[in-house]
């Protein structure tokens, strides 16, 4: 009972945490506890959180900071330090370039491809969509709607067709037409299924085989993902050479803190974030915006 009322809404819990921290004025043990809680509630994870707080305490001691806003500023710097320095551009350079999208079920791969396709077309590139998700019912139909919106062509196979051959055909199709970019969808898969991960390795290899070059393999991660995100990233990186993360659904109440741990641990940077349903709501990742949002009280009210 006590728990239920004390929790309230986690958004409130978050705000409360930061509000408490801010209201305290002076820095004491309670500050570190509250900041730790705040980071944990953002799904940053225990080990990264503890490392961040340890680093922060050290710096606060060194710099002799004794007011809260200064401490919060330093914490943001700590996180930025871990996120900083990465190349977040999406690489091109093949003829065509292939961007492959991978991830567990339901994270938003198909939608991301749809939005990104529209964006790239608007930027003047010619794009071919590859409906490599031949498993989920109607996944190709979903991508077809997006291809239509973007005014691009779609290469698809029958349901249950070999995803590698669909992607290969799409690359050949794009090469024949001199298209710049192939956006290749894959079926969502849980990273513990060895056979499906092997399949992904094969799709990645086949996509590179013909005229095209895979210049990006993007792991799509849902912002609500908890600590399992780290394992996901590790497994997908091992199977398909992941070059970047797309963090989706960041417009909800989840803060997506797991990506801090992912970049910290695996060195895989976030390249794109999804912040809404609209076509323009897939944007380049800006670490500073992300950290500010992480600490925004009531960012979503």
């Amino acid at each position: 009972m006590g728990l239920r009322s004390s929790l309230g809404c986690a958004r409130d819990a978050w705000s409360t945490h930061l509000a408490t921290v801010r209201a305290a004025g002076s820095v004491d043990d309670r500050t570190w506890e509250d900041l730790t809680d705040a980071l944990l509630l953002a799904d940053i994870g225990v080990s990264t959180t503890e490392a961040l707080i340890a680093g922060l305490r050290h710096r606060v001691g060194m710099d002799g900071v004794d007011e809260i806003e200064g401490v919060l500023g330093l914490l943001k710097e700590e996180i930025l330090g871990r996120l900083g320095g990465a190349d977040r551009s999406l690489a091109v350079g093949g003829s065509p370039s292939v961007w492959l999208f991978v991830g567990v079920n339901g994270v938003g791969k198909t939608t991301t491809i749809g939005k990104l396709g529209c964006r790239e077309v608007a930027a003047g590139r010619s794009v071919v969509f590859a409906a490599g998700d031949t498993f989920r019912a109607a996944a190709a139909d979903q991508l077809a709607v997006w291809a239509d919106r973007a005014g691009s062509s779609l290469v698809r196979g029958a349901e249950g067709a070999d995803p590698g051959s669909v992607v290969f055909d799409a690359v050949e199709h794009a090469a024949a037409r001199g298209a710049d970019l192939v956006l290749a969808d894959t079926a969502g898969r849980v990273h513990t299924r060895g056979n499906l991960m092997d399949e992904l390795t094969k799709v990645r290899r086949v996509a590179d085989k013909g005229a095209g070059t895979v210049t990006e393999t993007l792991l799509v991660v849902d912002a609500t993902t908890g600590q399992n995100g780290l394992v996901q990233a590790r497994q997908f990186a091992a199977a398909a050479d992941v070059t970047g993360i797309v963090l989706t659904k960041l417009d909800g109440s989840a803060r997506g803190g797991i990506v801090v741990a992912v970049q910290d641990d695996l060195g895989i940077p976030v390249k794109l974030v999804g912040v809404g349903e609209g076509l323009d709501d897939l944007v380049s990742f800006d670490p500073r915006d992300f950290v500010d949002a992480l600490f925004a009280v009531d960012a979503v009210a």
Partner: protein
Amino acid sequence: MFEGLSSRFGLILRKVRGRGRLGPEDVEEFLGEIRVALLEADVHLGVVRTLLDRIGERAVGSELGGALNPGRMVVKIVLEELTEVLGGETFRPAYAPKPPTVVLLAGLQGSGKTTAAAKLARWYKGQGRNPMLIGADLLRPAAVEQLRTLGGRINVPVFSEATDPVSVARAGLAEAVGLGRDVVICDTAGRLAIDEDLMAEVAEISGALQPHHTFLVIDAMTGQDAVTTAEAFHARLGLDALIITKLDGDARGGAALSVKEVVGRPIAFASSGETLEDFEPFHPDRLAGRILGMGDVETLIEKAEETFAEEQAEAAAARMLEGTFTLDDFLEQVRALRKMGSVSSIMGMVPGMARQVRDLDAEVDERRIDRIEGIINSMTPAERVDPDVIDGSRRARIAAGSGTQVGEINQLVKQFREMRRIMKQMGATGPGRKKAGRGKKKGRGGRTTARGSAPIDGKVGGKKGLSLPGLDDLPASQGPSSSGLDLLGSWPLD
């Protein structure tokens, strides 16, 4: 599933189990480790705190003072408190006195609502009902086509039209009444809990349907936000229960535990795989057992029953547990299990197998079963009964015969041997039976174990659902009889 949490607890518990003396600093350290384990399992921070408070209070309180074995007492406290949080009654779907029974599904984008809708329809069909699906997700492109395809696969009609979600729901319900369907399941678009317009819309759908059950579909991989989401949907729709999806991964599912504790609504169904069969009622008491590494014999039996005739199920489970099978049986089992669902999801239900599943998964992978079959087919009958006779020259012959490598044969034989050993051990010490060597009673196999005996259910009919098998009623010289506990070592024994 939940394997990470189980093994982590196994380690922590093993550390303290034999301690004769626990000082306050020991308890502190122990609690710290429990905290990390729970947080890494995505248990909500608030729930973690509640659990630690309860455990800490009891651990430093009077309970430890008089205990002969404080280490064991701490373990007992942890398990009891975990059970308290996880426990509760299994959700029982009710049917409307005047059909159709209406079920509304809601949740975030990508939580798996459409797949869950079809899986749920299939489940109702299995219960002898005539379900109908309504596709009210008009937002995601091709969501209705997806539902139609899945409906076609399980032979369940799907209603939808290109109007608006509320009208679709209303018309779908009328259609179901007209067709005389007795269960109606309505799929809705994914929405964020903070999207005011869409939340109002789903509330309106709910108003039009007056559902008998409203289920929130939630992804097992969700982190701290799960509680926020569940609270928001609950406030708007009045949830009855949850459907937890994607349990076939290694997500620890702490979010699920937290929702139960915070929102007070149980998980009704668990969805755990790629095929429409990988869906089953969720038993919180069994989950507690699974988290503690006890496996889920009961679910395994139920699943087997669904596929086989009943006596076949008994025999199959009994043989698995007795560990008397040969490589021929092994092959047969694997093929039969494949019919029930994915191999790894079945394996996860066998007590103590959770840890082995990941290793086995590589070998008993759907795709590799053909290779295993090839190898076994290239063996003589004698070799299949007793793989120990396979020496170097036999290995070379089998490899040549099956077109595989000698190493693969070694690996198969080794894993088979290991599996047989584990199962035999479970058969001997399975739930509800005494430890081997101490009045070993040969049960009637898994079925007896699952249905007839108390320990896996704890105090039968009791509110807790799961108790510490044996700990309460056995004198210190006797251990509990659960196999899972044996796999943790023999911690309650001294």
